[in-house]
């Protein structure tokens, strides 16, 4: 009984500590970004008023918008509203920032999920093939191809994809977004090239991480034992090697998803997609501090939440971690160092 209470208290303390860290991350990130924007030359009033703006008009509008106050006062004012769920109203669009984020979230979310699914669908089989034939010409060929993907940034891949698939072949649109309610086919056609452009780098990263983990696992004694029992290579690969090799993949997949949800600024700009990336890019250019703060807070919270989900999911993959909280540290350390799961742990 006493031990149970102590255990619950420990879990509660752990949860509170994590929430505290998460809040601190969000606070530091939003403060840092707001500070950087305040240090940048120019102001939202100058952007709004454009040509013919007199210094008097700029000063008047800055006062009207509250930007004549000290930075820390502005930030604390924003924060006091943000913790109550009010991210403010954009002085440029006159639209509540929460509404602006929610308007764009479906686009970015779909793009992120599609990019992640595409990455995994392509990278996992490639990694399995590479690991199964490690060192072969096929493995080297796949690794070389993914190296190309890794070294081609989205701002290069995007125009190349547009040129071939939109301008020359005319099989996908060059830009723009079609909501799902206007037809799933048209929606997927509009999303395919941006998702592929965003996925290319992820494919390379996923392939490399999973391949390395699989190769390490396949060299373990328990795999050799399984093979010695006469189990087929595919059975050994999928039943014995794949699961313990997927910690690192899970971690970087989750972080990729969080990053993609945070807005793929380049891809959204290249393909003119009305997503979170475009929202923050325009807000930065227009010195729309309120929108930038709101979107940054949203992105920070997304990262924190995804990290927490990853923590929890370790336990789902490896039941031992559910029983031993300290073992999660091992898992995290493992994912960071991309080490394969030790045979002894799994066969214990």
């Amino acid at each position: 009984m006493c031990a149970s209470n102590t255990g619950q208290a420990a879990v509660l303390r752990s949860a509170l500590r994590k929430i505290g860290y998460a809040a601190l991350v969000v606070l530091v990130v939003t403060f840092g970004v707001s500070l950087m924007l305040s240090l940048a030359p120019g102001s939202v009033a100058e952007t709004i008023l454009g040509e013919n703006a007199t210094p008097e008009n700029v000063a008047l509008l800055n006062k009207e918008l509250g930007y004549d106050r000290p930075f820390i006062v502005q930030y604390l004012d924003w924060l006091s509203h943000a913790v109550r769920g009010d991210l403010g109203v954009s002085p440029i669009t006159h639209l509540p920032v929460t509404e602006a984020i929610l308007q764009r979230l479906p686009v970015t979310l779909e793009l992120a999920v599609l990019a992640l699914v595409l990455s995994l669908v392509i990278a996992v089989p490639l990694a399995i093939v590479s690991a199964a034939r490690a060192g072969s010409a096929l493995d080297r060929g796949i690794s070389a191809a993914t190296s190309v993907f890794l070294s081609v940034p989205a701002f290069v891949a995007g125009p190349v994809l547009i040129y071939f698939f939109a301008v020359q072949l005319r099989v996908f649109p060059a830009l723009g977004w079609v909501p799902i309610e206007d037809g799933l086919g048209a929606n997927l056609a509009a999303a395919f090239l941006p998702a592929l452009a965003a996925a290319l780098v992820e494919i390379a990263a996923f392939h490399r991480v999973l391949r390395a983990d699989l190769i390490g696992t396949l060299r373990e004694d328990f795999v050799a034992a399984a093979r010695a029992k006469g189990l087929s290579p595919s059975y050994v690969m999928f039943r014995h090697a794949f699961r313990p090799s997927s910690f690192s993949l899970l971690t970087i997949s989750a972080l990729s998803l969080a990053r993609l949800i945070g807005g793929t600024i380049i891809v959204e700009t290249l393909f003119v997609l009305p997503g979170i990336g475009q929202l923050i890019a325009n807000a930065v250019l227009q010195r729309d501090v309120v929108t930038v703060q709101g979107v940054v807070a949203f992105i920070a919270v997304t990262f924190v939440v995804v990290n927490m989900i990853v923590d929890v999911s370790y336990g789902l993959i490896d039941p031992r971690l559910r029983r031993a909280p300290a073992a999660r540290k091992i898992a995290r350390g493992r994912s960071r160092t991309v080490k394969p799961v030790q045979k002894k742990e799994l066969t214990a």
Partner: protein
Amino acid sequence: MISKKRSALIALMAAGTLALAACSSSSAPSEPTTSGDPVSGGTLRVLELAPPIGFDPAQVFSSNSMPVTYTALYGQFMVADETTGEYVCGLCESFTSSDGGATYDVVMPEGLTFTDGTPLDAEAIKYNWDRLKDPALGSASAGYASQIDHIDVVDDLTAKLTLKSPNPGFVGNMPVYALQWIASPTALAKGTEEFNKNPVGAGPFVLDSWTPNGTLKLTKNPDYYDAPKPYLDALEIQGVPDNAQRLNALLSGQADLIMNSEASVFEEGKSAGFVETRYTFNGGVGFMFNTSAAPFDDPRARQAIAYALDLDALSDAATAGYPSAPKTLFSKDSPYYEDIPLQTYDPDKAQELFDELADEGKPLEFSYALFPGNGQSVFDALQAQLSSYDNVTVTADQRDSSEQGVIGTTGDYQVLSSSLAFSDPSARLWGALFSTAGATNYSRFNDPVTDAALTAAGAATDVDAKKEQYSIVQQQVAELDPYILFQGFYNGALSTEKVKGIEIDGWTTPPAAELWLQP
């Protein structure tokens, strides 16, 4: 060494690429056909230069970037005369001044209503233009609207504007600003956020749906006053700031019409078989000097730069191979065109002037205000050309893009790239060069001869008399160099052959009501 297999693979890929290119060129549009009578129906897909951030006239940054969007919702309050470039009434019945621009009488036609049924009358005009002055709204047109001291509603259809100081060019500059767009006061009173969900004007189209930074869908206004216009059933508009992206969308068949102002894109579009509609503004883009402060308060400093620069080479560098340095202040299409060269390239004379200034203890050292974007290529070309002279040094003065609008008004610069493009000389040219024009005289140019000629041109009623005065202005600009123009300024469109009715005359065109699709 390349193996045979690899060579074969490369050859195969090259052949494939050529085959793809051949396929695409065969599917490109052909030469335009004769337009014939307008036909009603169809949905036109348009890409404009920028996406709107909202439809409240107070939120309009640059109506020139989104002419189809705004003319669709609001119609055209003023329209450019295609011969003279001067603005005349569109939605209004008359807009006149009998006292040299101190006061104006705006008369509205009877029976004009917004799409919510409320009248577009003198009260609506007063409400809209007074509202733009509200600092809380932060309109980019606040400065221009503030030239109006007050508006009196004389009767239901007549509003009398009293300006703070006389401005004979007030009407001609209006279409550049949000005063061109008149919205329903009833709808505006609900607030900007609500208005953007249901914008109400008296234009040929009404809002169907809008995704910010996405697609704007508009449908025909069945009660449009100028039936049978509009001819189209619907418009689908998207704002795409990048030139290459707009062109790609046209090439891929994703758009029927794209707006464009870049010479290189016009050429690429034309070579792919699309139809070009281009309006060349008078004047152009060039170096603007702050003539009120050293070193360019001395005309010799400006003249030295003008003599020193090979503007065709500079234009070539700035436009990546599509030079368009204007030779004269008025384009050849203008009734005021005269062959008075704006600039003479004379390196020897330039060096003489640089040396003369140096001998007086004033070697020419100045900064060029550089903004993010393509300003860097202009600066690089400027610096490269001036480096071949002695006693002249130019340095980059890096600025933030948010300062771009305000820098001309504050005068916190020595030289920068700016536009002296205009269609109606009585307005924008007057505003840029008349000594007491106020905030719009960004170069702070002050020349009594130019002032007198601009005033006389504004007062003249026939084209010949105006032309005589504008030739004086042109001579003064060529002599005193408040601007050195190195690039033509265009408003235009590229379209498939089936798009008809594209009329581009100056700012805020083509009007949406005129567009139609050939079946």
